[in-house]
């Protein structure tokens, strides 16, 4: 097989459609002819588009279905999904616990609504700092 014959058979060699003796001859030629080997490798770079059958392209794209609709991103593994569920439950539990603590720890309002509206001192504040009543009759006893 000479170089011209070899290069003419590239597409059939690529599609694996050559009879075995011819394919062997071509492979033998490629082994001993550096220029043809280089040409075949260049050919192989574009062959998936230029020389592949429709079925081969389907296979490269991931089956006929892939041609009909865009490829989906790979889904998570089963183990990853279980791990993710565990993390979600932990986060939810922490959220609930934090809410309960915040509710309990929340201080009772020091002002009543009426205090707030009348802008007077809060009742709790009054009770806390209330001074003893000034009894005038004690002064009399003191003399």
């Amino acid at each position: 097989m000479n170089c011209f014959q070899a290069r003419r058979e590239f597409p059939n060699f690529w599609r694996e459609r050559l009879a075995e003796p011819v394919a062997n001859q071509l492979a033998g030629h490629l082994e001993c002819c550096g220029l043809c080997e280089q040409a075949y490798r260049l050919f192989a770079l574009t062959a998936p588009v230029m020389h592949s059958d429709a079925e081969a392209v389907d296979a490269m794209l991931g089956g006929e279905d892939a041609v009909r609709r865009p490829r989906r991103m790979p889904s998570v593994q089963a183990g990853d999904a279980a791990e993710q569920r565990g993390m979600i439950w932990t986060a939810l539990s922490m959220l609930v616990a934090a809410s309960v603590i915040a509710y309990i720890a929340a201080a009772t309002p020091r002002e009543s609504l009426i205090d707030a509206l009348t802008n007077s001192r809060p009742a709790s504040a009054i009770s806390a700092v209330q001074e003893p009543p000034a009894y005038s009759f004690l002064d009399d006893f003191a003399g």
Partner: protein
Amino acid sequence: MGLASTARLESAERVRPDEELVAEVRAGENAAFAELASRHRRRIEHLCRRFFIDQELVRDLTQECFLRAFAGLASYRAEMPFTAWIRTIAVNACYDELRRRRRKPEELVADFTVGELEWMELVSDASPEELAGAAEERREAYTLAHRLLASLRPEDRMVLVLKDSEEMGVQEIAETLGWSEAKVKIRAFRARQALRKQASRMLGSRRFRIFK
């Protein structure tokens, strides 16, 4: 089974030629066009996929080809096989789209994916027998080939695909694209040169063995 029913069965099973279906469509039987479309759709889609990697676009172009064919069926001449006629429509639709998408050739972008680099390594190192089988199931082989071809000018890519993939003769390409035969030959020569240059740039930059 009687002779008449056998004849009816044979008639039903007979694959009707395209020209007969075309005549039916022209006579107002639009259903015949659906059969024509289903008969040729896959081939036209495959031709469009030689130019575009976007499968959505490929479907749109295929549909557009059949719409153009339906609209232009009145101008169809039976001297040309329907297969060649619809292919001419598809080639022109793809050529228009190629030119619309890119006014000038782009440089090959060098940010290859890991899969594409692995495929380049295989192209560089694997035995010729292994290569074809290795390309199957590898989307990267397909995407890389598209990237390489996309670096060519639209007319270069067009002539390469028609000559090498569709195995059309120079005269046929010239008639399809409305070029002179000399232009087809010159374009084919320059397209191969450009392809080789782009491939060596792509692989040479990565120091793969083949284009050192």
